[in-house]
């Protein structure tokens, strides 16, 4: 469906490229989430795919057709790429009504089908009856849903969402995120979403790509990324992780919930540790232990009444089958 090959982009006057030699592929109907810190280049990649930026190097293919390369030979301008784009702030046209905004990208078809499309799009995003409102009469969440409807209305081949929830408060953010995921599934959209929030990424993505300093660190399913992060950076993006050095293999990162603390050695694989710190954070007790190779691990325990600082204990690591 979409194929990005070895693409780079450096802004004029910037010291480093915003995107450096990134490749990635997307299947029909797949939702990919690009997650990374702000300034890591993920938005630039989205803009390169949409044609809002031109690459310095590399190529972009949509449905096998080359739409961008470094030399501008096959350059397809954004208006000809049939891509939907949802901006961070919605970017609704302030002088047009909701209906006119959604209808803006529709081809000059018969008026009847146009009205019908707008109505069904509004229904899809749960805003039936909002046709005649103006953008300034909408709440943040409503604006974003209209923006999604506007992007989906012309039935694009691909829809790109650039931090669509980041301007919303956390509670709204979670519900809108789930709603938009539902909508994307319902219309069977192929989509790429950019976010800096790991929870968004895990909740929405069929696959996740971790972006760091203009490059993709790791791509995989949410569970691959959560349980088998490639390195410390990828591990920490999705929460606490403990580094475990199994003899004879690369270090692995293990989530706290996969570790249990035993007061006695149960099997030969259990690791002997010493309790260094106990912290009651309400929901659970956070236990920091030091294992013999001087690595510190964090565990979460339901209750820890019998635990004591300085006491010896054993940690059992549950394996995850993929």
């Amino acid at each position, binding site marked *: 469906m979409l194929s990005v090959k070895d693409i780079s982009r450096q802004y004029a006057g910037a010291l480093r490229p915003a995107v450096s030699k990134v490749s990635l592929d997307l299947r029909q109907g797949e939702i990919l989430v690009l997650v990374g810190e702000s300034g890591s280049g993920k938005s630039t990649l989205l803009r390169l795919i949409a044609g809002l930026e031109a690459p*310095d190097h590399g190529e972009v293919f949509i449905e096998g057709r080359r739409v961008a390369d*470094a*030399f501008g030979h096959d350059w397809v*301008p954004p*208006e000809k*790429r049939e891509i939907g784009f949802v901006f961070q702030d919605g*970017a609704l*046209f302030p002088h047009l009504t909701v209906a006119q905004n959604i209808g803006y990208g529709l081809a000059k078809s018969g008026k009847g089908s146009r009205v019908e499309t707008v109505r069904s799009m509004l229904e899809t995003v749960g805003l039936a009856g909002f046709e005649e409102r103006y953008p300034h009469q909408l709440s943040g969440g409503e604006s974003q849903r209209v923006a999604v409807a506007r992007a989906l209305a*012309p039935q694009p081949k691909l829809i790109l969402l650039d931090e669509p929830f980041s301007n919303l408060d956390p509670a709204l953010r979670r519900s809108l995120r789930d709603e938009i995921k539902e909508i994307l599934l319902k219309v069977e959209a192929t989509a790429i979403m950019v976010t800096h929030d790991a929870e968004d990424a895990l909740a929405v993505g069929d696959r996740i790509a971790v972006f760091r300093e203009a490059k993709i660190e790791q791509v995989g399913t949410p569970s691959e990324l959560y349980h088998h992060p490639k390195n410390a950076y990828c591990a920490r993006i999705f929460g606490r992780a403990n580094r475990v050095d199994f003899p004879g293999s690369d270090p692995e990162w293990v989530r706290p919930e996969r570790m249990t603390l035993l007061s006695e050695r149960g099997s030969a694989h259990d690791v002997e540790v010493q309790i260094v710190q106990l912290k009651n954070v309400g929901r659970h007790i956070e236990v920091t232990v030091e294992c013999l190779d001087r690595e510190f691990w964090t565990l979460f325990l339901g209750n820890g009444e019998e635990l004591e600082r300085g006491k010896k204990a054993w940690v059992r690591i549950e394996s995850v089958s993929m």
Partner: protein
Amino acid sequence: MKRVGSRVPVQLLVISTIQKQWRREISGWSIFTVLLGLAIILPIAIVLSGLFQEGPKWDHLASTTLSSYFTNTLILIFNVSVISIAFAILPAWLVSTCDFPGRRFFEWGLIMPLAIPTYVAAFVYFQVPDAAIPLLISIRSQFGVEAFILAEKELRYGVLSCTMAGVLFPYLYISARASFSQQRQAMIEASFMLGKSSRATFFKVALPLSRPAIVAGLSLILMEVINDYGAVNFFGVPTLTEGIFRTWFGLQDRSSAVRLAGIVVLAVFVILALERAQRGRARFSQSSQMSAPISRRKLKGLKRVMSVLVCLIPLAIGLLLPVSQLITWSAMTYREVLNPDFFVQLGRSLGLSLGAAVIITAVATLFAYAAKLHPAGWLRFLNRFSTLGYASPGAVIAIGVMVLFGAIDRLFGSAVVSGTMLAIGFAYLVRFLTVAYQPIDAGLSQVCGRMDESSRVLGKSPLETLVRINIPLIKGTFIASAILVFVDILKELPLTLILRPANFDTLATTAFGLAKEGRIQECAVPSLIIVMAGASGLAILYRLSSFTEKR
């Protein structure tokens, strides 16, 4: 996997990068910008190239009147500058730092003299040397002919200088006031705390800080003085611009006229460059830090009365007297002047101004949007370059367009474009494009880029995006720009005099023609219409500027 980049040598990569950049920069928009930019620069370039050509009567000109053209221009520039400083600086200081009766009225009222073109003011004030004839005659009988000639000349030059300064000083007033009211309270207070009087504070702190703004305002006045044809012609003070007319039409020596125009445009560019240079250095001394604006001191007693007078005198000379005189004359003559012929002429004049204004505004919009589409520096540079048209005097542009269109005619073998509406319309475009371009460019840059990108991604071309998104969003600016151009064209005189088609008159040329025939009272009606149009243009400018300040 094929890796193209890694095998290509560095030199080739550099070339390909340049190639690629160019490919992306070439579009209908950038081609339009380049062609338009060249078209606008062409008449000015033609005039400048005239510097290197010598007409048949150049030697004659150089040995006779040329030096007086120069000295007259310099004398006028000097006089008008000095009088403008006297008229503008103190009121600007009082209005922005003190409180006295009528302050708010004067604040914007002192801008209004700009509504009166210099030639209209000249019609009114020509009465002064006229009225002084008995006095001059008595001088002749007492001191002889030479004293008479000297007194008469001094009187004319003096009154003309006052007249021009009376309607041009607001340029200086506006920039000085803006600068004074931006100055930081802390700086003024520091001066008071150091034991300086308010007079010393004005001269030692406020005035030096405002120097860049004052020089900028003065340079605008200088350019207007150089641009003027109507007033100097009416008062019989031949300046360089008058010299262009005399050489072209009187001496029939076109090459020498072009050379003279080249000298004028060169002088204007030198002024412009000097002004830029002095502003460039001063930029760093201005603090961008937000701080409390100057709080106004309440004036008491004699100072109160003096402040009102200081503001009232320039306002009376520049606005109240001329306008009341025009109204009086209009009341006397409107019955004869407002005949069907006049209305036909009025309609044609308004039609020309309106049509040209709409086209120029549309072109300016395309021009500005091209720069928005291609953020690379070179298009912006070209855009800025084309602002030179507004700096060049109207007569100079008219000469450039005459020569250019004459050359086009020669290609066709007959006069197909000279003396047509096309010629005068093109000249207006060259001169007034900037008037519309500046506000529209500012307006377009306030429409955030994501609006454009949203529209593009939704399948709309740049042109459609401009028409359906950008223009509706800056509708107010768009209309205001068109009105500004309209007003400027309506009152334009020298360019129109040279390029108007045969038997075609605008309000400005009608008024000027009547005045030249000595039917001075009859010219009041068209003049008053021009003044009213000018006043509405100023009101729009005032609103546009306060609008951008609020943002």
